[in-house]
C-alpha cells in the first residue's frame, strides 16, 4: 500500500508541468505533432488519476495545446472536475480552460449551473470573480435563465469588485435571455450613480451597448447621461457616452441642439485623438438629424471639415484613414462642404496603403459632378493599369462603373466617351466583372438611342477581334462582353456598316470555345443579321450576295449543331432549317425577306425588376393546385430524373430581368416521404443483388488498392487558356479610340481657350452638357404589367434578431 503510494509519487514527480511542455514543444520543432501526440497520451493518463492537482496540471497543459489548434472538447468533463475544486489555483485553471473551449453545444454545460451558483456566492471575492469571468465566455440561454437572479443579487454586493463584474455580465445575460432585461433594468439604472467609479463606468458601458441597438427605449436616460458627460473626466467613459448620444440624436433633435456646444468645446480642448474623433462623429450625426439650417450649424460643419482635413493631412496613416471615413459621412448630407477638398482626396488615391485608397474611392463616388467625371475616371483607369492586386483592380473597375452609372447616368455627358471607356475596360485581364461591363454596354445601347450607331460600330470591332477575348473562358470573365457585342449587333443591325463582315465574324470557329450561353446569343443574332442582309440584297436584287450568304451559313452553322450545350444545339438546328427553307423559297423566286425581318420586328424594352412578381394572377387560377394526378409513389427513380432538365442558373434569360422568379415547387408531404422510405426499405431487403454495409469498416486488402470512386474526375478543358499579357487590339480599333479621345481633349482644350478669350459660342463642357443633354437622353421606359406601382422595398432579412428581442419599453 505504502509502496504504491511512493511509486505513484515518483511517477508524479516526472509529470511535465506547463513550462516543461512548452519547452519540450520548442525543442521538438521537427517532429512537433508526434511529440504533442505523446504529450496528449500522458495527459490522458494524468486525467485518470484521482488527484485534483494532477488533473489541474493536465488541464493547464490542455489549454495550451488548444491554443496551438488541438481539439480538447473530449476533456470537457475533466475540466468541470477541476473547476469544482476548492482550491483557488485549480479553480482558476479550470475556468480558464472552460472559457477557451466551452460553447453552446458542449453537452456537459448543464453540470456547471450549480457549481457556478455556488462559486458566485462564495465568501472569497476572487472565487466569484473567476466564476463570473468564465461564465461570460460560455454563457448559454439555459445558463442565463438559471443564473440571472443570482447575478442580479451580486449587483448589490458590498464589494465593488463584484458589483462591477456582475453589471458587465448582465449584458451577456440579456443577449442570451432577453426576458431578464425588464426586471434587471431598474437595478442597472441605480448603478449609474454608484459611488465606485469602476461600477459606474461598467453600468455606463452596458447601457450604452444596449441603447445603441434600441435607442428609443433609453431616451429617458438622456438627461442623466448629459450630467455624467459634463462632470466626468474619464475619457473612456466620455467616449462611450458621446457615442450613445450619436445613437439618440436622430430620435430627438432638441437633444442634438443642446449637445452642439459641449461637443464643440470638447473638440477645441481635448488632446486625445480618440475623443476628438468620437466628438466629430457625433457632431456629424447631430447635424444630419437637424434639418433646419440655423446659421450656427454651417460653422460647426466647417469646424468638423476643417479638423478632418487636418486628420487627413496628417502623416499618421491611421488618422488619414479615419479622417476619410468621417468625411464620407459628412458627404452623405453636406456634399458641398466636402467638394472643396477634392484635390486632397485625389491625392489620397495615390497613397501606398490600399485601405486608404479604398476609402478615397468611396468618397469619390459621392463627389463626382458632370464636370469632373471624365477626369476622375481617367485617373482611375491609370490606377487600374498600375494596380498590383487583381482584387484592387476589380474594386476600381466596379467603382468606376458605379460612379458612371449612378442615378441613371446623371453625370455622363458624352456617351460616346462612356462606350469607349467600356471597350477599354475589356482590355482588363483577369477581371471578374465581365458580366458587369457587358450589362453596362447593353444598358447604354438600349436606353441611349442616339449612341446606338457608335456603340454598334464598336461592338462590330469587338466581334471581329473576338479571338483575343475568347481565350478567357472562365465564368464571368471578359468573354461575357462578346455576349453583349453579339446581341447589340444583331438587334441594332441597321447601324452596321458591313453586316456581312460581322456575320462572318460571328461564324468563326473560335466561337465554339465560348461558354454555352454566349454561343446561343451568337446563333440567335446570326439569324437577325441574315434577315437584314437578305433584305438589303433583295432591295438591290443582288442574287450573288444572297448565294454567298446562304453557302456561308450552310457551311458554318453545322458546327453549332454539334455543340454540347443544349440551347446552342437547338437554336442552331432551327435556324439551319429556316435558312434551308428560305433558300428553297428563294429558288422558287418568292421574296421572303420581309417575313424574315418580321421575325424580329418591335422594340425591346428593359423589364422592370420584380415585374414578374407583379403580374396579376387571372381569376380562377390556382397556382398551387396539381395539374395532373399525383405521380405514383412506388419508385424513387423519377425524382432524380426530374432534375436532369433543370438548369441551375438563369443563363438563358435576358440580362434585364433582375428579379427572382419563384416557381411553385412540388414538395412531398411527410406521409409521402415516410411511405417512400418504407417502400424503399422493403425493396432493399428483398433485393438479392443489393450489397449491405457490414458496418465494421473493412481494411483495404492492399495498401495500393484503390476505389474507382477515388479517381479524381477532372474536367477536360477544350480551350487552352493563354494569358496574353496586354491584349493587342487591331490598329483600326486603337486609332478610332485615340481619335475619340483626342477629339474630347481637343474639345476640352478648345473650350478652355475659348473660355479664356471669353468669346461667344464655346465648345466648353458646359455647352457640351447642354448639347449632349438634349441629344443623348437615357430612356427610362421599362416593361411591366399594367398598373404596377413602383417596385416595393421588400425588407431584407433583418440581421441582429438578438437585438430585436431586446427592444422592450422600459418605462
Amino acid at each position, binding site marked *: 500500500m505504502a509502496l504504491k503510494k511512493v511509486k*505513484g*509519487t515518483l511517477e508524479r514527480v516526472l509529470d511535465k508541468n*506547463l*513550462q516543461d511542455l*512548452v519547452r519540450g514543444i520548442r525543442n521538438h520543432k521537427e517532429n512537433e505533432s508526434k511529440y504533442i501526440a505523446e504529450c496528449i497520451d500522458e495527459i490522458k493518463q494524468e486525467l485518470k488519476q484521482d*488527484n*485534483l*492537482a494532477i488533473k489541474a496540471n493536465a488541464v*493547464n497543459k490542455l*489549454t*495550451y495545446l488548444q*491554443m*496551438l489548434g488541438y481539439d480538447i*472538447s473530449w476533456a470537457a468533463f475533466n475540466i468541470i472536475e477541476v473547476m469544482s475544486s476548492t*482550491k*483557488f*489555483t485549480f479553480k*482558476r*485553471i479550470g475556468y*480558464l480552460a472552460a472559457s*477557451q*473551449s466551452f*460553447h453552446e*453545444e458542449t453537452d456537459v454545460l448543464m453540470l456547471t449551473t450549480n457549481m457556478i451558483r455556488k462559486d458566485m456566492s462564495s465568501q*472569497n471575492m*476572487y472565487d466569484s*470573480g473567476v466564476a*463570473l*469571468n468564465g461564465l*461570460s*465566455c*460560455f454563457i448559454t440561454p439555459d445558463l442565463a435563465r438559471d443564473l440571472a437572479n443570482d447575478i442580479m443579487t451580486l449587483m448589490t454586493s458590498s464589494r465593488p469588485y463584484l458589483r*462591477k*463584474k456582475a453589471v*458587465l*455580465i448582465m*449584458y451577456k445575460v440579456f443577449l442570451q435571455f432577453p426576458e431578464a432585461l425588464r426586471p434587471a433594468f431598474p437595478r442597472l439604472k441605480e448603478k449609474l450613480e454608484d459611488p465606485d*467609479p*469602476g461600477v459606474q*463606468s*461598467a453600468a455606463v*458601458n*452596458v447601457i450604452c*451597448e444596449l441603447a445603441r441597438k434600441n435607442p428609443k427605449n433609453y431616451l429617458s436616460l438622456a438627461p442623466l447621461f448629459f450630467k455624467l458627460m459634463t462632470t466626468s473626466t*474619464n475619457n*473612456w*467613459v466620455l467616449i462611450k457616452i458621446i*457615442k450613445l448620444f450619436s445613437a439618440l440624436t436622430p430620435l430627438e433633435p432638441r437633444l442634438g441642439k443642446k449637445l452642439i456646444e459641449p461637443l464643440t468645446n470638447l473638440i477645441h480642448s481635448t488632446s486625445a*485623438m*480618440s475623443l476628438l*474623433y*468620437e466628438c466629430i462623429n457625433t457632431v456629424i450625426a447631430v447635424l444630419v438629424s437637424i434639418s433646419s439650417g440655423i446659421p450656427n450649424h454651417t460653422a460647426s460643419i466647417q469646424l468638423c471639415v476643417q479638423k478632418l482635413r487636418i486628420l487627413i493631412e496628417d502623416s499618421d*496613416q*491611421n488618422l*488619414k*484613414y*479615419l479622417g476619410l471615413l468621417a468625411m464620407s459621412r459628412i458627404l452623405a448630407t453636406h456634399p458641398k462642404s466636402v467638394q472643396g477638398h477634392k484635390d486632397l482626396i485625389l491625392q489620397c488615391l495615390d497613397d501606398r*496603403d490600399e*485601405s*486608404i485608397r479604398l476609402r478615397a474611392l468611396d468618397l469619390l463616388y459621392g463627389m463626382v459632378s458632370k464636370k469632373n467625371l471624365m477626369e476622375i475616371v481617367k485617373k482611375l483607369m491609370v490606377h487600374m493599369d498600375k494596380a498590383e492586386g487583381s482584387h484592387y483592380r476589380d474594386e476600381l473597375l466596379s467603382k468606376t462603373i458605379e460612379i458612371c452609372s449612378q442615378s441613371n447616368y446623371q453625370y455622363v455627358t458624352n456617351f460616346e466617351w462612356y462606350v469607349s471607356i467600356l471597350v477599354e475596360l475589356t482590355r482588363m485581364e483577369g477581371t471578374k466583372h465581365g458580366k458587369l461591363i457587358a450589362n453596362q454596354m447593353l444598358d447604354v445601347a438600349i436606353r441611349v438611342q442616339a449612341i446606338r450607331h457608335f456603340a454598334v460600330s464598336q461592338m462590330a470591332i469587338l466581334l471581329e477581334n473576338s479571338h483575343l477575348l475568347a481565350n478567357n473562358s472562365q465564368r464571368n470573365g471578359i468573354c461575357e462582353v462578346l455576349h453583349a457585342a453579339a446581341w447589340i449587333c444583331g438587334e441594332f443591325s441597321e447601324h452596321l456598316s458591313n453586316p456581312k463582315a460581322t456575320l462572318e465574324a460571328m461564324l468563326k470557329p473560335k466561337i465554339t470555345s465560348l461558354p454555352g450561353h454566349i454561343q446561343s446569343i451568337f446563333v440567335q443574332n446570326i439569324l437577325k443579321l441574315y434577315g437584314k442582309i437578305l433584305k438589303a440584297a433583295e432591295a438591290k436584287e443582288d442574287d450573288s450576295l444572297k448565294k454567298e450568304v446562304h453557302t456561308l451559313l450552310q457551311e458554318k452553322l453545322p458546327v453549332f449543331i454539334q455543340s454540347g450545350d443544349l440551347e446552342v444545339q437547338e437554336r442552331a438546328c432551327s435556324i439551319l432549317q429556316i435558312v434551308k427553307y428560305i433558300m428553297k423559297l428563294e429558288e422558287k423566286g418568292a421574296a421572303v425577306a420581309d417575313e424574315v425581318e418580321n421575325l424580329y420586328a418591335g422594340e425591346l424594352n428593359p423589364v422592370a425588376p420584380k415585374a414578374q412578381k407583379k403580374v396579376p394572377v387571372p381569376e380562377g387560377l390556382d397556382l398551387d393546385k396539381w395539374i395532373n394526378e399525383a405521380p405514383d409513389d412506388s419508385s424513387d427513380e423519377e425524382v432524380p430524373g426530374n432534375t436532369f432538365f433543370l438548369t441551375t442558373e438563369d443563363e438563358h434569360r435576358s440580362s434585364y430581368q433582375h428579379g427572382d422568379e419563384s416557381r411553385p415547387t412540388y414538395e412531398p408531404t411527410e406521409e409521402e416521404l415516410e411511405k417512400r422510405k418504407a417502400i424503399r426499405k422493403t425493396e432493399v431487403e428483398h433485393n438479392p443483388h443489393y450489397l449491405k454495409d457490414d458496418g465494421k469498416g473493412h481494411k483495404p486488402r492492399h495498401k495500393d488498392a484503390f476505389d474507382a470512386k477515388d479517381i479524381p474526375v477532372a474536367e477536360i478543358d477544350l480551350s487552352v487558356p493563354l494569358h496574353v499579357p496586354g491584349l493587342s487590339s487591331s490598329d483600326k480599333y486603337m486609332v478610332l479610340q485615340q481619335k475619340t479621345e483626342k477629339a474630347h481633349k481637343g474639345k476640352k482644350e478648345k473650350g478652355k481657350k475659348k473660355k479664356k478669350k471669353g468669346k461667344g459660342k464655346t465648345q466648353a463642357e458646359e455647352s457640351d452638357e447642354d448639347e449632349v443633354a438634349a441629344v443623348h437622353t437615357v430612356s427610362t421606359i421599362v416593361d411591366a404589367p399594367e398598373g404596377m406601382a413602383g417596385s416595393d422595398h421588400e425588407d431584407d432579412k433583418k440581421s441582429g434578431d438578438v437585438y430585436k428581442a431586446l427592444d422592450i419599453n422600459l418605462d
Partner: protein
Amino acid sequence: MMQFMLLFSRQGKLRLQKWFVAHQEKTKKKITRDLITLVLSRKPKMCSFLEYKDYKIVYKRYASLYFCCAIENDDNELLTLELIHRYVELLDKYFGSVCELDIIFNFEKAYFMLDEFLMVGEVQETSKKNVLKAIAAQDLMQEEETPQGFFEDHGLG
C-alpha cells in the same frame, strides 16, 4: 463591444486568443487563419485598420507580437488602439519589461491579466492600479495555497 482579441508572432504562431463571443472550434480556427494571413501581409507603413466580414479589425505590432482585435462597426478604432496599448502596459508592469517569451511561458497569467482588464468585450477597469492590485491579490492567494496544498495533494500531508 469587442468580439475577440488575438496575439500572434511574426511567424504566424498564435500566442493568445480571447473570444468574447462563443463560437465553434472550426469557426474560430478559420477566422484565426484568415486574420493572421491578412495582418501579416500588411506592410509596415499601412494603417492599422482592416475590414473583415462584418467586423473592423484593429491591429498593432509590439516588437515581435501582433495584437489584433475585432470590433463592431460602430466602435471607435482609436479607442481600441488605446485599449491594446493599455493592455501592453499592464503586462509590462506585471512581468517587468515584458517580451514574447514571457507570454509564451506564462500564457495563463496573460489571460488572467486580460480577464481583469476586459470583460464581455468591454473595458472593465480603467485604472491600471486597480487591475494590478487585483492580480497581485489573486497571486497571493495562489501562493498561500501552495505550501500546505503541495504536501496534502501528494499524500504526504
